[in-house]
């Protein structure tokens, strides 16, 4: 069905009913100084002139051809097949494509996405996806609280600091007490009133934790305590032990690395999986496969909807009533076109290139690798001259690694380096050179 917009007459009628004189009045709550009065482009320009003007503005952006920045959003190879498939207007423009009678194509795609995520993670069930990794983690905390009937959740340091903020917000809204602690102090804080322990691996600083060791440690004393793991770059699943083999109860991840351009920091993709026994408590959409009534063909449809808020209302564990359809399709096409061997190759390159850089940096006097656990494609380094490093990177057209002081001011000379399969050997050599040059810059060292 085509989209039919409102006409002036209808708009006037609606405004009259709600006693508002013009549409702009509905935006009264936005502070006046934030409202754009006019766009910086003259009226009545021709299309080519407008395009030229926009290109001029665009040139003001500094686009780095090579990146050493990660921290939750990653530059990865995206097979052209992804764009080719998702650009079909049936996929690109459809809105909430969940009606069985109108959207069999999308419903099948979502079903296949669920299946492939379940296989990759070896978790028993996967939902149709959530908005992003951070909200998936927050919803997992709420789900754990509902399952166990307890309202305290432990979160281990090392979870992405922005994820921690999101989880805090959700917990505050749901009256769940969030206890943030380090892995060393976990045993001091753990007790029978805890609904779940949440951790990230590989974590914000790059450290990998064995999920099985973690779950044994927690469940030995408190078998009813749930384990929740989150992950920001799931390409590592091409190499690492899948969460399904670690007794983790709920596994969530940011799926942006699966075929979604980093763009301006979004959109993301919330991968959400759990053990089958929690099927009736997981949030989000679930697509199922069934047979038609008057024949033998397979059909796809939303199922187990009695979990959702439009039926369960205030007893629902979540108010989400959508999924990231286009992004989940991107992830599906990404994983299908790479296949098992392709994903393993990508993961291997991430691991090997990052370790090459890690080892090379460690050899430069003054630099100290701070990770004590194994890492995947990210690691943290203490720098003798952090400002120098950032400057030399920019000079060589390399997007510099994250300055960790952005989130942890006390770590003022630490960077979080990310190396993916996209980092060429020449960009890697430049980065190592930048690191060496940074030491020699005396003025900046005085900072």
């Amino acid at each position, binding site marked *: 069905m085509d989209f039919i917009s409102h006409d002036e007459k209808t708009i006037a009628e609606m405004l009259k009913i709600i006693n508002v004189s013009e549409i702009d009045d509905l935006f009264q709550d936005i502070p006046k100084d934030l409202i754009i009065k006019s766009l910086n482009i003259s009226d009545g320009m021709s299309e080519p002139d407008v395009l030229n003007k926009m290109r001029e503005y665009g040139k003001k952006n500094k686009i780095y051809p090579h990146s050493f920045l990660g921290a939750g959003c990653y530059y990865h190879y995206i097979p052209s097949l992804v764009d080719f498939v998702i650009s079909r207007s049936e996929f690109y423009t459809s809105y909430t494509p969940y009606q069985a009678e109108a959207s069999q194509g999308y419903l099948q795609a979502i079903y296949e996405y669920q299946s492939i995520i379940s296989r990759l993670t070896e978790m028993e069930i996967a939902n149709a996806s959530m908005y992003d990794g951070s909200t998936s983690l927050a919803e997992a905390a709420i789900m754990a609280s509902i399952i166990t009937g307890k309202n305290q959740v432990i979160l281990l340091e090392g979870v992405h600091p922005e994820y921690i903020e999101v989880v805090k917000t959700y917990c505050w809204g749901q009256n769940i007490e969030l206890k943030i602690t380090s892995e060393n102090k976990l045993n001091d804080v753990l007790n029978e009133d805890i609904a779940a322990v949440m951790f990230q691996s590989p974590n914000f600083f790059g450290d990998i934790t064995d999920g099985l060791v973690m779950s044994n440690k927690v469940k030995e004393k408190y078998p009813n305590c749930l384990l929740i793991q989150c992950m920001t770059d799931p390409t590592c699943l091409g190499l690492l032990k899948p969460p399904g083999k670690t007794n983790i109860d709920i596994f969530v991840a940011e799926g942006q690395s699966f075929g979604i351009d980093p763009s301006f920091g979004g959109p993301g993709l919330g991968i959400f999986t759990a053990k089958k026994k929690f099927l*009736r408590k997981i949030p989000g959409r679930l697509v199922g496969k069934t047979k038609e009534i008057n024949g033998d063909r397979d059909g796809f449809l939303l199922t187990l*909807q*009695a979990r959702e808020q439009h*039926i*369960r209302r205030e*007893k629902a564990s979540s108010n989400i009533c959508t999924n990231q359809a286009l992004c989940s399709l991107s992830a599906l096409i990404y994983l299908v076109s790479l296949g098992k061997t392709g994903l393993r190759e990508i993961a291997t390159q991430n691991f090997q290139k990052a370790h090459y850089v890690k080892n090379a940096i460690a050899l430069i006097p003054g630099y100290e690798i701070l990770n004590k656990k194994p890492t995947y494609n990210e690691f943290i380094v203490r720098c003798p001259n952090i400002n120098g490093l950032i400057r030399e990177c920019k000079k060589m057209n390399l997007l510099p690694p994250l300055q960790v002081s952005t989130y942890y001011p006390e770590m003022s000379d630490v960077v979080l380096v990310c190396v993916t399969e996209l980092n060429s050997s020449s960009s890697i050599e430049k980065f190592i050179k930048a690191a060496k040059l940074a030491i020699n810059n005396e003025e900046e060292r005085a900072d």
Partner: protein
Amino acid sequence: MDYEFPDNLKYTKTHEWLRIEDNTATVGITDFAQRQLGDIVYIELPEKGAILEKQSSVGEIESVKAVGELLMPLSGKIIEVNSNLVDNPELVNSSPYGPGWILKLEYTNELEINDLFSVEDYKRIAEEEN
């Protein structure tokens, strides 16, 4: 309105029925309730041994289009649950008073039985809600 409401049972206004024998009660949901819910696909049963107050939530009955809460009709201890309902939840639709029974409890306060409805009173409630 052609619902079945056996007269040897007691009822609650939240559509549970009780068959009281000695100091125990067998509990289920009425024909009216099962019809309103539609095809039942899942029942969340309480733990055997659980001790609960009257009116507290003791389980959930899920159909394709709705979720109904099961409330304790009397304070007491759960002594048995109908595990057949795990694989065959549709029994609640087909025989709500027979094989579709949900749980058995041992009540602790005899006086609460006076608050239950007779079949006549319940028929009126069902008619009003219809």
